């Protein structure tokens, strides 16, 4: 029983636990090897924490080779190095959503992402949405049509989040939109119009 497992190894082995799962035999080969392979005794010279890292960011389809302090967040790299200031710094602690961008097609917070961690992954920002001829993305147009902002500071994050919300399938109902847009705060409280904009863009996309 697990109740009295204390610190003893648990009786559940992985293979026995998963039973007939066909994938079971193939998974985690590195862990299995780890138990038998001897450790390599190679010592490595202490790296310099202040040495810049060479990173190529792929932003809106363009490669940007950069030399960055490892501490640089994706948000700061976008704003200060690449020159794309559309993504906004609100709280800088992952609480407000103003810095939301897409990495590998998923919405993430660029303020809690290190630039070095997303090297060579496709990043999309608010600047990458409109077509080259200037035609706005349906979500951008919907925010204008529905008056979904006042000061506009949270808007790039709202729009990036809203596009992902629809792509994830989380914009089917009014309450779903409210729940799945809750990571983007709007100090002007334009929330009702933001929900209306998400619905408009969703229906344009579906129609």
């Amino acid at each position, binding site marked *: 029983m697990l109740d009295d497992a204390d610190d003893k190894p648990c009786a559940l082995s992985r293979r026995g636990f998963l039973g007939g799962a066909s994938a079971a035999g193939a998974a985690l080969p590195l862990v299995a090897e780890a138990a038998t392979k001897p450790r390599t005794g190679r010592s490595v010279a202490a790296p310099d924490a202040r040495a810049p890292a060479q990173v190529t960011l792929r932003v809106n389809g363009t490669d940007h080779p950069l030399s960055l302090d490892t501490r640089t967040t994706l948000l700061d790299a976008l704003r200060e190095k690449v020159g794309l200031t559309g993504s906004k710094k609100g709280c800088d602690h992952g609480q407000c959503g103003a810095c939301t961008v897409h990495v590998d097609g998923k919405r993430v917070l660029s303020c*809690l992402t290190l630039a070095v961690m997303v090297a060579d992954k496709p990043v999309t920002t608010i600047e990458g949405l409109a077509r080259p001829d200037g035609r706005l993305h349906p979500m951008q147009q919907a925010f204008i049509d529905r008056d979904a902002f006042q000061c506009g500071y949270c808007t790039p994050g709202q729009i990036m989040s809203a596009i992902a919300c629809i792509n994830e399938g989380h914009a089917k109902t009014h309450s779903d939109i409210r729940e799945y847009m809750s990571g983007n705060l709007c100090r002007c409280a334009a929330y009702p119009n933001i929900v209306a904009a998400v619905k408009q863009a969703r229906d344009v996309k579906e129609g």
Partner: protein
Amino acid sequence: MRPFTYERAASVDALRARGGDAARDGMKTSRAFVAGGTTLFDLMKLDVMQPDAVIDINPLANDLGRIEVGGNGLRLGALVRMSEAADDPRINRDFPVLAQSLTLAASPQLRNMASLGGNVLQRTRCHYFRDTSWANCNKRNPGSGCAALEGMNRIHAVLGASDNCIATYPGDFAQALIALDAVVEVQGRSGKRTLAFEKLHRVPADTPRIETVLEPGDLITAFLIPTIPAARRSAYLKIRDRESYEFALASAAVALDIANGQVRDARIALGGVATKPWRAREAEKALIGKKLDEDAARRAGEIAFQGAAPRAHNAFKVALGRETVARALMHAAQMEI
């Protein structure tokens, strides 16, 4: 943020020699693993955590990022993202309490980033822990005291606290895991081991700095959740200051096996009210063999908080917690499965 070196993990094997001890030793550590970074970089910006080296384990996703369903249970790799598990139809159907605990946590962006392994190790939201202008925090500075004892302690724990620390364990997923008797798989310097997830976290006692039983270099690689009859009739109820994107003031993960109108198995775990993911076993026992009506649910709630020790501003959590347990049990009892 202080300078640190960054490297990508090449394999789980290679990590054994390098190690990452943030989980065990708290703040003044040399190395930290990072997956989503949603806790680590937040606390590094606040200067609460100060690793010299950050080891990115995301390159291990092929090995540690799988959701596998087998005859006896569910295996969740430690690098599965919260959103992946929350949206998985099999988990929603067969282990609803797991999916709900994840869906109700954080924001969609954070759930896309945060890994399950990192999620269970997220640090407390205690204001005095997060704000380094307060010198007296036994988690950050052992022996310095606890500013929360006589401070603003509305969000703090009423169960499992000590005179050294009353910080609340902030997560949701962990409550679902202990309710279902999950097992955690750990890769350490001496190899792989498993232990009951309930044994992972420690109460603060005299050493609030040490939050888990993990050793330096240990890496959580997976969670194993056994298929039990109660798993399908399970639910997570989270009560908070706002309806979404907020930490729990009180939460309950419950699972019930009911046959012929009688409770055969009951699981109750409490969040938002305790210093670690908290299993209410005495309350569970009181339900066995009974009909789960409102009286029985309320009595279970009362038993769950019998040992509560409230402070100046958090006494409301006792009443709120009791009601949360009762409501969660009533909801689970009425689920159509």
